């Protein structure tokens, strides 16, 4: 199923405090969290993001705290996929664990500008920049990450393991 949406672009080392500030970690409701997503570095994000949109960033996206609230907030805010040059490792695990696909692609991360319209085919590993008419390749998601995306996250995987 191709993803089609607008890009919201940020820089390097976007930390989880930026994605969801710690002052909101006294709650867990995805929609409430989504309401404060990115607010310390981009107070306009919540009002401009639409379901199916794409977040694009530079190096080390999601560094810092292990809070799963970060990918949860992004997903609930409508972000369908995050593209970055690289991801911090806990965020990377968390993303796939909750069913938020993450793509590492330096080409896409550098080529896409804020507001560009992009189309992504996860299976074939292609990001299409509709606005600019460019294409970027990425290594298709494999292994445990692919399995998690297919079954809908780690919860399902453990459920099956416990039932077997």
């Amino acid at each position, binding site marked *: 199923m191709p993803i089609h949406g607008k890009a919201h672009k940020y820089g390097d080392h976007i930390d989880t405090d930026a994605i969801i500030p*710690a002052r909101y970690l006294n709650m867990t409701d995805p929609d409430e969290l989504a309401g404060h997503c990115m607010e310390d570095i981009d107070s306009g994000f919540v009002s401009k993001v639409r379901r199916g949109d794409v977040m694009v960033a530079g190096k080390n996206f999601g560094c810092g705290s*292990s809070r799963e609230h970060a990918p949860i907030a992004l997903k609930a805010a409508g972000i369908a996929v995050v593209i970055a040059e690289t991801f911090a490792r806990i965020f990377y695990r968390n993303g796939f664990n909750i069913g938020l696909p993450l793509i590492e692609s330096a080409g896409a991360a550098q080529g896409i500008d804020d507001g560009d319209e992009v189309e992504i085919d996860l299976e074939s590993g292609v990001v299409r920049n509709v606005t600019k008419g460019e294409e970027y390749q990425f290594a298709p998601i494999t292994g445990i990450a692919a399995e998690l995306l297919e079954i809908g996250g780690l919860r399902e995987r*453990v459920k099956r393991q416990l039932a077997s």
Partner: protein
Amino acid sequence: MTITEKILAQAARRDEVRPGEFVTCRLDLVMANDITAPIAIEEFAKMGAARVFDVEKVVLVADHFTPNKDIKSATQAKLLRDFAREQGLTHFYEAQTGGIEHIILPDKGLVLPGEVVIGADSHTCTYGALGAFATGVGSTDFAAGMALGECWFRVPASLKFIFTGQLSKWVCGKDLILYTIGQIGVDGARYMAMEFAGPVIENLPMADRFTICNMAIEAGAKNGIIAPDDITLDWVNSRTTRDFEVFNSDRDAEYAEVYEWDAADIEPQVAFPHLPENTRGISEVGEITIDQAVIGACTNGRLEDLRIAAAILRGRQVAKGVRCIVIPGSQEIHLAATREGLVETFLAAGCLVSTPTCGPCLGGHMGVLAAGERAIATTNRNFVGRMGHSESQVYLASPAVAAASAVTGRICGPEDL
């Protein structure tokens, strides 16, 4: 193999593992806190799990927003308390029985050399100071760990950091790790193990070793680790009667990179906003006034840290207009600090002394910053908005630098007093 590879191989019941391989390891301990456990407890139920894999090996610590700062955080802490009771967990801690997770788990002898630990908190890497493999995960991974007693890992490549020479006066573990992050950057060890070694590390007390491994995540590392030696074993043996195994890196172990630094070249370090890699030696800081100093957190809230701060604050006064907040990392440390007279020293100098909590470290409570305010802190992160308003600023340093800065009202080292 490296120490990290050996621990993972053993826990995966394999003779050998190599960087990049995926392995499933049995877990010796899983931990979560009042922020991460609420999501995990819900996930645990949704996974269809009824009981945790081992009531001795699941640890819950309410420390971030405790004593509870508002109704929502009180509700979260209660969720942990109820779950712990319902499951019959041996180890549930909150302020009066515990303190900050990464201080109390080692202190209570819950993590031992050679063990594999996951914690739903990024600073779980702290326990690597004991020669354990310990790494941070999210809530769902923790929930899976609670249910299954196992977790999958990609075996990390290792970086080795060797410190030689002599530490200068007032230079401590915090300065070594800040220096390291300044050199390699906040993603310099992304996905890798950071192994710390050399004569300087071998002479460091456990408190400094915990500080160093605590901040491995600030370089993006999966884990930080220090091979156990006599200092480690003395420390561990006074806290447990459980068996454990000591691993060491082989002489021919392979490293992605080896760094060697002379400690004599390292002066007290300060990390400028808004990344821990923005480090400068204290002599290059310039004139920076502060509104607040925070001495505490899982990085530097240990008794040894408080002793250093008290030595500097004894007989001196916190500068007018500056709030100096001292937070002992656990109830036990608070008691010991009281008995030693440190608390009196702090109070006499005009500091605020709090019950153990993460509090201001994550901008939770007990010292949140307003727009335009500046703090020096012994914490580990200085991201935008980390201690409060998005237009506030946090500078990271050692307890010695934080205490000296509290006295002068500007960032300085103890030598400047």
